[in-house]
């Protein structure tokens, strides 16, 4: 197992977090810092040391527009039901709401998916997996957060084990409120996302790359043992 105290000494996160208040102003990018730089030497091999990169739009606008259109019309949803909101995803997939009409389909693995639907409350244990899954997803990737719990904690605002605002940990493109939002509302959320993608506004992935350190600091603030114990992920 990992020696926690040792890890703490190397980890400068706790001091950093206090200074990182607003997502707008205080983030910084230090290209030289590796994503796994905080870790002890022998544990680095477990993690990727590559930072996410900002992908600028293609200069030739028609091409970019075409690509955005294509992206919007084939949203593949990661079938990771992170909270109770996921139950309304199931009816969406059936013939009654028929999400396939819009080119959307569930995918079992993050590597095939382009949309991450955060279904409501996110417990600490799940947050770790969410971050992991999100980082595994290939770009362009988008996040739709449904339910009030993902916006400001919802019912579990005073719970010790759920995070309150998901946009502190991963960038969210579209929010749908409700507890739960009906399938129609979730569907409208996806349609809104399509619209944003076509307008070239759904740049959550780039935001994550730009403010990578800010997001990481936030993630590390709540997830205490960031380096994995020997099981799971």
């Amino acid at each position, binding site marked *: *197992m990992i020696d926690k105290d040792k890890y703490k000494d190397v980890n400068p996160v706790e001091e950093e977090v206090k200074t990182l208040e607003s997502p707008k102003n205080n983030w910084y990018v230090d290209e030289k810092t590796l994503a796994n730089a905080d870790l002890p030497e022998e544990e680095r091999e477990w993690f990727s040391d590559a930072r996410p990169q900002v992908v600028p739009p293609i200069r030739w606008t028609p091409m970019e527009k075409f690509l955005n259109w294509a992206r919007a019309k084939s949203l593949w949803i*990661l*079938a*990771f*039901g*992170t*909270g*109770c909101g996921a*139950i*309304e995803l*199931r*009816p969406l*997939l*059936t*013939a*009654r709401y028929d999400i396939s009409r819009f080119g959307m389909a*569930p995918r*079992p693995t*993050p590597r095939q998916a382009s949309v991450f639907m955060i279904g409501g*409350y996110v*417990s600490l*244990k*799940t947050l770790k*997996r969410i971050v992991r*899954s999100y980082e595994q997803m290939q770009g362009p990737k988008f996040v739709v957060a449904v339910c009030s719990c993902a916006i400001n904690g919802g*019912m*579990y605002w*005073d*719970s*010790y*084990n*759920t995070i309150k605002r998901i946009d502190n940990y991963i960038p969210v493109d579209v929010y749908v409120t409700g*507890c*739960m939002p*009906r*399938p129609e509302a979730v569907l409208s959320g996806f349609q809104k996302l399509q619209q944003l993608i076509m307008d070239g506004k759904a740049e959550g992935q780039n935001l994550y790359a730009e403010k990578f350190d800010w997001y990481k600091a936030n993630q590390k603030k709540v997830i205490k043992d960031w380096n994995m114990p*020997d*099981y*799971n992920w």
Partner: protein
Amino acid sequence: MIDKYPKIVDGKSVYDLDSQKYLKMWQGPQHPGVTGNMSLELIISGDQVVACNTHVGYLHRGFEKLMERRRYINCFPIVCRICVPEPDTNEYLFAAATEELLGITVPEKAQWLRTLDLELSRLASFLMWIGGQSGSFGSGTVAQWAIANRDFVLDLFEELSGARIYHMYMIPGGVRGNLPEGWIEHTEKVLNNTEKLLDEIYIVLFNNAVFKSRAVGMGVITPEMIDQYGIVGPNARASGAARDIRKDNPYLVYDHLDFKIETETAGDTYARTLVRWKEMHQSISLIRQILKLMPKLGPIYTKLPNVLHMKVPAGETYVKAESTRGEYGYYIVADGTEFPRKITVRGPSYSHGMALLEDLVVGGNIADTHGLMLSLHTYPPEIER
């Protein structure tokens, strides 16, 4: 590398992963087949599972802690969140336990409405489950049918209670609202369709060669295991134990209704699926009986003391009901203040999903783990709450 796996299953040998003979494989929490989020840490040898360890806690919100600092009336919206596919059992149990501690009786009409709500939610929950069960065996069609049909049942809930999933209908003291106009006719239509669908499901699923060859003999629960593991509900009934709280300790108006306990003897996945399928028919029949027998008029709510500062006299009680997965219970300890001292939620998935599942999957192959998990009808939020 140091051996990081000293303990996996107690009393069983330690699997040396470096020997290349065994492989550790994680299923979940991000896995499309898992109901709710839960992960199975499997040790496999070839295609065969040799050991399993379940991991829960991905959906832990600390309900029991949260309820300790909420007034009783404020626990009412929160309890239904404990089980998403079947919130009504939670609502009923919390309301019933609180009423018992307060010494309040609920009007007769409200009791009928509660029973109606419970049976409808049983139907919806089973439809959701049969979708998952067939989906886990590769029969996506039944999944599509069942879940779409469940949506029609949810429409009924929406008209009755004002919400699709979290109905928050059974408040301590009674229910919130009478049957809306035209609801009974709508229900009859939905029930007819569901009945038709169930027959179709029987043809497509239970006669299906693939399903038969996989489900028969898979994950057998022997009658001896029932008491050992505390198995309840359809899982126990599929192994021949005729136990149903609705019959044994009748609550609400179940003693006015005519139904029998559905049992099977094989105790395998097929039998469990069949028992639940029968119970769906039973639910439909119960709903029809309730609509026929229910009094047309009468109060639906007994006034509680002012809910903003209602104090519940000190005491404790345990109220249980038969949910789709078996015995569901609420143990409330009141200490005479406005806040409950402790509310323990006893979900049947607790024993099914952890102790039992860990032992049942051993010996099966990887592909069967989810079919097995679903056939036990576990639902992780109940375990971790």
